[in-house]
């Protein structure tokens, strides 16, 4: 009887005390499976960031013009593409096909345009501002180096190595908040004023 009692007790203790024993922290770190990270839909034109940003070394803001002056980084107008592709028709067959699709969409300035699939989809109640992060925010990386503005790659990954656009981070609120907290800690460490909002719902939800 008492042996059974002991087993029962042990089972119960393990069953109920597990959260306490393992710590709420670790439970908290469990991410529910989410559909966002690595989302890489097939696009009507398989535009390659690797080629344009990587090989050709075109600046991000050449196309995503809003990133440093607006909430939206914005998806470029086809006119931006045509700035070069008036001249460049591609070398490989694949490139030629893609660029041909571009010409059709452009249609001499009166075409249908391209219906891109949006990769980064924050809900409408989230007011993320690109300008604040790209131009205003101070960023301290994990080595303690301080820079004005956050490099695009921090959130979007190194697009110079990615072909068709892909979501790099999960972009959940937990991810945002943890970065803000880390930044505030790192700022404090190197004696800078910490300004990333953490306890301010209205910074993103209003």
């Amino acid at each position, binding site marked *: 009887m008492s042996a059974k009692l002991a087993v*029962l007790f042990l089972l*119960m203790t393990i069953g*109920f*005390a597990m959260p*306490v024993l393992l710590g709420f922290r670790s439970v908290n770190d469990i991410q529910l499976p989410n559909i966002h990270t690595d989302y890489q839909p097939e696009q009507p034109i398989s535009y390659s960031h690797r080629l344009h940003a990587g090989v050709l070394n075109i600046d991000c803001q050449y196309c995503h013009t809003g990133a440093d002056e607006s909430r939206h980084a914005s998806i470029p107008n086809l006119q931006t593409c045509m700035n070069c592709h008036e001249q460049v028709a591609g070398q490989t067959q694949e490139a030629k096909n893609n660029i041909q699709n571009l010409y059709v969409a452009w249609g001499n300035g009166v075409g249908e345009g391209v219906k891109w699939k949006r990769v980064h989809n924050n809900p409408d109640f989230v007011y993320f501002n690109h300008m604040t992060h790209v131009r205003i925010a101070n960023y301290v990386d994990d080595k303690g180096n301080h820079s004005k503005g956050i490099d695009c790659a921090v959130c979007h990954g190194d697009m110079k190595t990615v072909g068709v656009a892909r979501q790099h981070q999960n972009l959940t609120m937990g991810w945002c908040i943890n970065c803000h907290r880390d930044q505030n800690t790192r700022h404090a460490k190197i004696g800078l004023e910490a300004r990333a909002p953490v306890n301010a719902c209205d910074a993103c939800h209003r």
Partner: protein
Amino acid sequence: MAKPPVQLFCGVFGDEDDTLDATRACREAGLEFHDVYAPYAVHGLDRAMGLPFSKVTWVTFCCGALGTTIALSGMTYASWWDWPVNVGGKEALPFPAFVPITFELTVLIGGVCTMLGMFALCLLYPGKKARLLHKGQTDDKFVIALKKTEDFNEQKAREIFQRHHAEEIATRDPGYNAADEPATGGAA
């Protein structure tokens, strides 16, 4: 509990006072109980059998304490350590506000575990087949079952049973189950 290895000497009674007295007498006579069965809780019957106080209280205590711990640590973790927020100008660690939930979780976990622990101690579980020594033992009959061990004094036992107005005295096989007997119309 597995089937008793020995045969059982059973006395069936119709009154709780008789049963109680008979049980006491059996114990004083040094007869070994297999068990006593009663349709309802008869106070003192377990003491009369010489059973110790139930250990279910310990289950309650430990699990209740566990509930308290989970509640307090969880709330402290969530509202103070993990992300302290300014709610109505109150402190991030408002202990008075934790009292209700701490209490409730203590009772909840303590209570549920008490029930589970009690059933575990009784080895009761859904689907278990009840073993009856008499059809009426959950209705109006009391059964005292004594182990027919090697040194069992059947004579003495029978004498005690009869003295206490036993309605039926029988020896049952280890595997006997009155529930398997065909219906006798007793429950009509």
